[in-house]
């Protein structure tokens, strides 16, 4: 453990956000093509192609509406008013969008190096862009879902939130956090195969520890602290506020999480760059 810490701190000294950005900028053309392929690969050979990326969130939205609003008659906030039919489902879905991005990146990262063995052993390839590629693909999926959510909230709830234009700001900590963890997991996944098995479990737990199916305010006081250290909590709440409720997000909190996520991203990048030399020997 002591050795781990020593290694970790020696890495930290080399952490440089500018080197990271420059390194990635250099590979922008490659990244562009990799993301395009990654998205294309998912639908390649299927008849409906890209339509699937629309159908998927649509069906989920319908199912949520049926289960939560019709069967459970669930309410997001305690009220006796008549709420629009889709309200719960749409609120839930607004929280799922950032969570899905996070889970897609974190779930795919541990195995991503193994899916490109040739890029490790046979050609000179900037492996560090693979987690970036995953993030790019996840961003695409998330944008499609956003469009559907906006339409749905307009149709069912007659809500159109102008504060939505600040949404890109919330994507910053979300992407940095996912990417940073993606780099670390992609590297660890090469050495420790168990990571690939463990991560889906952890993500599953996170899904229920984040305020996705409930609002933060409905969590009992004594447990709320646990929910709040989860960085996704802030992101999920901000998403709802901007997308549905037309509110602004708490800037101070956002700033703190953005800095922390930025730090995680840089550490993840440096960690990846330091360990990637050993990949070829392991695979």
């Amino acid at each position, binding site marked *: 453990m002591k*050795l*781990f810490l*020593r*290694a970790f701190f020696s*890495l930290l000294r*080399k952490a440089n956000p500018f*080197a990271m950005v420059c*390194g990635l900028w*250099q*590979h922008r*053309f*490659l990244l*562009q*093509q*990799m993301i395009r*392929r990654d998205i294309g*690969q998912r639908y*390649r050979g299927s008849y409906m192609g890209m339509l699937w990326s629309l159908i998927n969130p649509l069906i989920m939205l319908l199912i949520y509406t049926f289960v939560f609003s019709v069967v459970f008659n669930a309410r997001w906030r305690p009220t006796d008013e008549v709420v629009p039919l889709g309200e719960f489902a749409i609120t839930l879905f607004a929280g799922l969008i950032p969570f899905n991005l996070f889970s897609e990146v974190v779930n795919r990262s541990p195995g991503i190096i193994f899916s490109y063995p*040739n*890029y*490790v*052993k*046979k*050609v*000179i*390839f900037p492996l560090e862009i693979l987690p970036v590629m995953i993030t790019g693909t996840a961003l695409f999926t998330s944008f499609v879902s956003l469009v559907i959510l906006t339409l749905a909230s307009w149709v069912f709830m007659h809500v159109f939130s102008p504060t939505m234009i600040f949404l890109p700001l919330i994507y910053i900590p979300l992407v940095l956090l996912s990417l940073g963890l993606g780099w670390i997991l992609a590297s*660890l996944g090469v*050495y*420790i*195969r168990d990571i690939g098995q463990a991560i889906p479990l952890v993500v599953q737990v996170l899904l229920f520890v984040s305020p996705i199916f409930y609002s933060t305010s409905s969590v009992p006081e004594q447990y709320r602290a646990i929910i709040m250290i989860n960085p996704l909590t802030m992101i999920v709440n901000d998403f709802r506020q901007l997308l549905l409720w037309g509110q602004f997000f708490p800037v101070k909190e956002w700033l703190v999480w953005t800095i922390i996520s930025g730090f995680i991203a840089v550490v993840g990048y*440096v960690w990846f*760059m*330091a*360990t990637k*030399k*050993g990949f*070829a*020997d*392991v695979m």
Partner: protein
Amino acid sequence: MINNNVQPPLEADIAIRVDNVGKMYKLFDKPVDRLKHTLFWRFGKVYGEDFWALRNISFEVKKGEALGIVGRNGSGKSTLLQIITGVLPPTTGTVETNGRITALLELGSGFNPEYTGKENVYMSGAILGLSPEEVNEKYEDILSFADIGSFIEQPVKLYSSGMFARLAFAVAVSFDPDILIVDEILAVGDYSFQQKCVARMAQMRDNGLTLVYVSHSTDSIKDVCSRAIYLKKGELVYQGTSEQTTDLYLKDLREASNEEINQSNAKKQESTADTSSSTLKNSLRYGTGFARVEKVEVRNDAGEICGAFEFGEHINIDVQFRAYRDISNVSVGYGVRDNSGITVIGTTLFDENIIIPEMKEGEEGFVRFRLINHLRHGNYGVNIGINSVSKKDYSDNLVLDLVHACATFLVVHNPKRPVWYKCYVPIDIEYRIGNYAGVEKR
């Protein structure tokens, strides 16, 4: 990015400097030990066992120079190339390179089989950091060199290995690398494509490209490279001109293969010592066993055991045999087979009107067939037969022993005197030039 030792920059005319490079593979019991090792080796902890694939390799390649690397399988050639390319990190020592490297470590390994040739071309460009516009400029060039026609629009998985090779090579040479690293790839393509590649590499070399080239074909190394190094069991045993190096390499190969032959001969003798009559014990051998071939050696004129010959050199096939019964009208013959199994040349004592009237049991015999090498370049196997025969129509022929492939040798392609046919036959040629009418008048 990390652990870059500060070093004086390379001199302007050096393209690659390999300094004391070693590659050790750790053989680990558990994969976790490997991670611990990657992180903590600098703190002096030891995990796993060591295996050195390369050791103490140092050499330099000047800009515009072509360096060949020869060595047997497992000698570390590919590992060395991977280290120069930067795909593998060296365990000890450093590699410095100057300029953009393109590596053909394995044909088309950067290609995704699901995508079309065209998509893969753009992808390969992107891996090198080129924008789609920059790839556009080279695209026509690549197409015309690869010469695979409309297949460029088909998924790469449908390509024949030859088409694959064409496209991969075309892509690699078209993006203007400063240093090109080529690992034994031309074997896939057909002959004309190989020639095209070799010519292209030579042309690029003349335009200032630095080339590192691994091949088992010592001829193409001689064609392309001015200098060569010889790796043996992970160590650099020789560096010199490509002729000197390939000669040494071939000599080593010969000695090694002769050793193998001698060992297998020894085994054959052991196995025959206890059986008096020859059954089909060894599928490559048959006959009554009244006489047996004991030893076959291929030598050059200096009397050394030799495995490779050039055009015009003498090949001596020495046969030792022994009679296991009293036999008469003994004839010994040899045949040389090419690798397609056709016996190209051969003769027997009987056909040459040499007759050994009789041999007593236990008597030994020796025959030397000395021939001038007029064979096409390639690998050849020697068959030796012992018969008892006295009639020219072979009606009373009795095969005493016939051994297939009891020795092998290689005929080296000599660019100065190529043989493009199975076998050359000495010939007299008359020719005239000029007005045909003039000939008639004479």
